[in-house]
């Protein structure tokens, strides 16, 4: 056989397969023992120091790149979520994703900002409040088209 050697290729591929199998096992162990969300992979119960005082001004949240949202208290499910602060109020926006649907079913959730956890209630915006939230969101995300914004759900977050 000229040009390439099948046996040699198979030997190399076996070596790569061993590396990949070890990597997969490591990923599986990390996934099963996960707590915090990682990128687009949802996590479980969030860890952090819980703040009990009610929050009236959420402006401090703007210094953080993202917030973590923990929904479905019975079987915690956490994700990285897009957020914005408008007139000291905290808003979370989402496409009609799985976690947002959980949040509609059970609006009592927890969010983590920085390393602090807050017990909050998420209220879905409708009517005039929705328009106001969409406007604030579009100012902060000028790349989003009106059609994309119209498809999103907006929730205002309040302490409980």
């Amino acid at each position: 056989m000229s040009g390439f050697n099948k046996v040699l290729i198979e030997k190399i591929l076996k070596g790569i397969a061993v590396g990949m199998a070890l990597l997969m096992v490591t990923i599986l162990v990390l996934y099963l023992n996960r707590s915090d969300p990682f990128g687009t992979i949802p996590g479980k119960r969030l860890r952090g120091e819980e703040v009990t005082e009610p929050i009236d001004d959420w402006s401090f949240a703007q210094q953080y790149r993202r917030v973590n949202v923990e929904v479905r208290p019975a079987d915690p499910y956490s994700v990285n979520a897009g957020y914005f602060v408008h007139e000291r109020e905290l808003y979370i926006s989402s496409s009609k994703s799985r976690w947002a649907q959980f949040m509609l079913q059970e609006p009592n959730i927890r969010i983590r900002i920085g390393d602090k956890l807050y017990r909050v209630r998420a209220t879905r915006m409708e009517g005039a409040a929705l328009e106001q939230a969409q406007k604030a969101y579009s100012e902060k995300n000028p790349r989003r088209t009106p059609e994309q914004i119209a498809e999103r759900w907006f929730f205002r977050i309040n302490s409980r």
Partner: protein
Amino acid sequence: MHNPGYSIRAVKLVILLVGALVVLLAVILDNVNERNDWLAAGLILFSLTASTYFLAWPVSRDDQRNWRFNTKSVWLFIYLMVAAVCAMWLWLLKT
């Protein structure tokens, strides 16, 4: 004389190398991170092509008609598992 078996082997090797190249370039350009969709796509291409080198049933009969475990199927399983995980990863990124 043209040998079709040789052509198939050559095409398989080219696809395998393209997959490896995509993985390499994806890592160089965007590091190893969960948002790197090219890395996922390259791994799918590489794993699926690599799996074709180990096509075998998990068990087969030997010359004495006894059932024997085929070790080759282990490598097939590993590559198909990697391809499935990467497909799920890509799907999560695109939804």
